[in-house]
């Protein structure tokens, strides 16, 4: 199914929960409300005509200083879906504010989401409600802050950790 048709089906199924859609050079994106995110992802996986059986990537974007988005929700959580059966792709985004940076976990849908979500928590400080083990993935336990946030100072030095740590 081509991307425009996927977006059309998605909007038809979820209505106003699909906040915004756009297409750029063959990549189709749907921005969905956080409350509907879990249902949208589950439907994308289970609907036979879509059958997004693979979560290619799960990441986040910090729009703190992004031109035109300074006043909007700070973070975008981005899901890249792929269907092996149909060979089509879709990008799903959900926007969250800094003081309420929580989205529902996708670990129940795609097990790979486990480490993706841990990485997003580690780097951006976005929490995933319902995640079974939301620890830092790349940085160590003593690390303070979330280094891929745009307001993380590049010169900040972390305390050194000792051999017993």
């Amino acid at each position: 199914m081509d991307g425009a048709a996927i977006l059309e089906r998605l909007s038809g199924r979820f209505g106003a929960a699909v906040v915004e859609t756009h297409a750029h050079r063959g990549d189709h994106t749907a921005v969905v409300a956080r409350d509907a995110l879990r249902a949208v992802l589950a439907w994308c996986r289970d609907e036979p005509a879509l059958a997004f059986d693979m979560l290619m990537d799960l990441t986040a974007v910090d729009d703190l200083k992004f031109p035109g988005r300074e006043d909007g929700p700070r973070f975008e959580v981005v899901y890249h879906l792929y269907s092996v059966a149909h060979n089509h792709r879709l990008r799903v985004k959900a926007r969250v504010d800094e003081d309420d940076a929580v989205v529902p976990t996708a670990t129940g849908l795609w097990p790979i989401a486990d480490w993706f979500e841990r990485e997003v928590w580690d780097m951006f400080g976005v929490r995933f409600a319902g995640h079974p083990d939301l620890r830092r993935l790349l940085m160590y336990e003593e690390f303070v802050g979330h280094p891929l946030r745009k307001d993380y100072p590049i010169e900040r030095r972390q305390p050194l950790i000792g051999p017993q740590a």
Partner: protein
Amino acid sequence: MGVGSFFTSKLDAAIGWARKYSIFQYPFVTACCGMEYMATACSHYDIDRFGAGLPRFSPRQADVLFVVGTISHKMAPVLKRVYDQMTEPKWVVAFGVCTCTGGFYTNYATVQGIDTIIPVDVYIPGCPPRPESVIDGLMKLQDKIAAQAQRY
């Protein structure tokens, strides 16, 4: 000048001479500098000429710790432990600019110079250093080993 002091200084020199030509290195190789380290160790540049041809892959059998490549904060405790496991006498060479200062990795993940963790005897800057620089550093280390007061 007593007999004892004359004897001691000559023994120091003899031991220093022996030690500087029997360097067993521990290569702590974490990054791209490792390729240049290998080039130096192989037959073209041949550090066996300096008695440093046999790397030991156990810190307990090594004299010189070659820290070759970027050290991240997560790797720092491992490096410290390897250093602590080495027996005296021991020396440390910082190989490449990342180990000297952090290099261009001014970021959240990289240790800004291994001398924030362990003492360093010789710094070899370069990204990566040419084998000639490495041999120069090795010879400076040999001079240091030969000249230093020995402890038995």
